[in-house]
């Protein structure tokens, strides 16, 4: 038998994939030797529409529709950039409420990713359990903002709704519930055979590779690379609410799961601290004028660094909006992980990356 390389496509429509992404694996027996990817299936042209169809104060609600999972991070990154051009100052209460929603969003996004990883290990019951518990986070998001997924909570100048003591009480109750459940998952993900031993040593991204291929977010932190925009920027006062970076080791699927679980726990702590130290004040400040000049903002989305660049020339329409999304930046690292692993592991590895193609293609 000679060495024969076979091309196997995965996607863009596939049973184990949620996202329209296409991979072509060149396989030698079961080993993947080369990968090519195609990500542009859901390209809609939002960047262009932000400069031609929508005025600058409508754009936060348009960019939220780039991605349903990190909608709040998208609109917040844009809003922060626009506010720096308008030279307005957002009240501390509005900043705290924004952080609260970003962290709640991170909790439910990570829970979704964990449930997918469990499903790809063949552990459907775990998938159902996590999805069932995730509903409680969706409930408090609905209570705070009025919608489950596409909550247009952030607007230029502040936030659109305030929270009351009733809602605060409910949030505290839910956070305590989620904390208890997350400790349960931690136990399950470290001791259960399907979720720990099976995932150890699969889909490894070494520290050196993470550094060289520009991995970001939980993918990089699982490999031991200490990178998190929350600790590097100061648009939002993360240092006041007990942010801690959790760095894993090993860089395999197991390590990514553990990093995500600890981030959920950290986010819960942060949410409780936000509620504990919520400053008094208005939630909206009036912003005058039209955006003039250019601004660049980086924020930590659930999947990694999200970058917005906007340029305005004193008109209602902006002249440029540029969005760099986390999954797009991580694709070289994805491809490096796939090389050398088994073809049968590919769906599980892909789920552990938590890719978001709607973000990537825009």
């Amino acid at each position, binding site marked *: 038998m000679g060495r024969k390389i076979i091309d196997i496509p995965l996607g*863009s*429509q*596939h*049973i*184990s*994939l*949620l*996202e*329209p992404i296409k991979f072509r694996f060149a396989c030698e027996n079961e080993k993947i030797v080369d990968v090519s990817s195609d990500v*542009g*299936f*859901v*390209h*809609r*042209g*939002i960047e*262009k*529409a932000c400069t031609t*169809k929508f005025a600058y104060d409508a754009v936060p*609600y*348009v960019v939220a*529709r*780039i*991605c*349903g*999972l990190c*909608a709040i991070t998208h609109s917040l990154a844009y809003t922060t950039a626009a506010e720096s051009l308008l030279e307005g100052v957002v009240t501390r209460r509005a900043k705290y409420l924004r952080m609260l929603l970003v962290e709640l969003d991170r909790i439910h996004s990570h829970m*979704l990713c964990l449930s997918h990883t469990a499903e790809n290990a063949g552990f459907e019951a775990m998938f*159902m*359990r996590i*999805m*069932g518990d*995730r*509903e409680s986070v*969706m409930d408090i998001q609905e209570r705070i903002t009025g*919608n*489950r*997924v*596409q909550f247009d909570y952030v607007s230029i100048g502040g936030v659109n709704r305030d929270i009351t003591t009733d809602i605060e009480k409910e949030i505290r109750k839910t956070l305590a519930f989620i904390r208890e459940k997350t400790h349960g998952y931690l136990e399950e993900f470290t001791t259960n055979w399907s979720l720990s031993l099976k995932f150890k040593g699969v889909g490894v991204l070494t520290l050196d590779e993470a550094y060289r291929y520009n991995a970001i977010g939980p993918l990089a932190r699982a490999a031991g690379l200490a990178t998190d925009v929350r600790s590097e920027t100061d648009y939002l006062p993360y240092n006041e609410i007990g942010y801690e970076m959790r760095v894993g080791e090993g860089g395999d699927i197991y390590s990514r799961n553990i990093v995500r679980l600890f981030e959920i726990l950290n986010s819960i702590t942060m949410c409780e601290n936000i509620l504990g130290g919520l400053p008094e004040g208005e939630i909206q400040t009036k912003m005058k004028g039209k955006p003039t000049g250019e601004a660049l903002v980086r924020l930590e989305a659930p999947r990694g660094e999200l970058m917005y660049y906007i340029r305005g020339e004193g008109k209602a329409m902006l002249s440029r909006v540029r969005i760099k999304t986390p999954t797009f930046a991580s694709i070289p690292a994805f491809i490096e992980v796939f090389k050398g692993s088994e073809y049968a592991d590919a769906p599980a590895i892909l789920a552990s990356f938590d890719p*978001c*193609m*709607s973000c990537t293609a825009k």
Partner: protein
Amino acid sequence: MDFSRYRKRSPWILHYNAGSCNGCDIEILAALSPRYDLERFGVLNSGNPKQSDIFLVTGPVTYRSRERLVELYNQMPEPKVVIALGSCTCTGGVFRGMYNVEDGIDRYIPVDVYIPGCAASPELIIDGVVQALDILEKKTKERENAKRLYSEPTTENGITDRSNSAQKIGTGGFSPEEMKPNSPERRENEED
């Protein structure tokens, strides 16, 4: 064996993302999860078009996804029901008029149920799927009727005459007199 009797009890869903923001896709997963439990209707989310009965589409149809959309639709066996899930799938929504967007799936495939909302909540998804089940049953019955009519041709003088059965199907149950334009019976029926 005739499976049509069981079709309503276990419809399989094919979900395709034609350019949505993932919001509706995640709400589908939420609808399948224990809180809402869409699976109690026998619904199973399958990735295979050849085994599916309900085509659940999200997204405003991007330029590159339209070929795949039509291809998946064609691969599904009859009878099939198409659900457009979310505002952007119905009309284009916030994406309407963007350069790479085709403004809704009904430009390419016939749609039976429209579910509005951005993002559509799981309650609405369940409501839409339950409506789709009724449509699926109706379509199943229509197919059976057509088969029976076509399989009963009359034979006179050695010539097979299908005109009788074809007329019954083509006029939707009206008699030839009723089908004449401007006949009083027809007008009455239409007003009903």
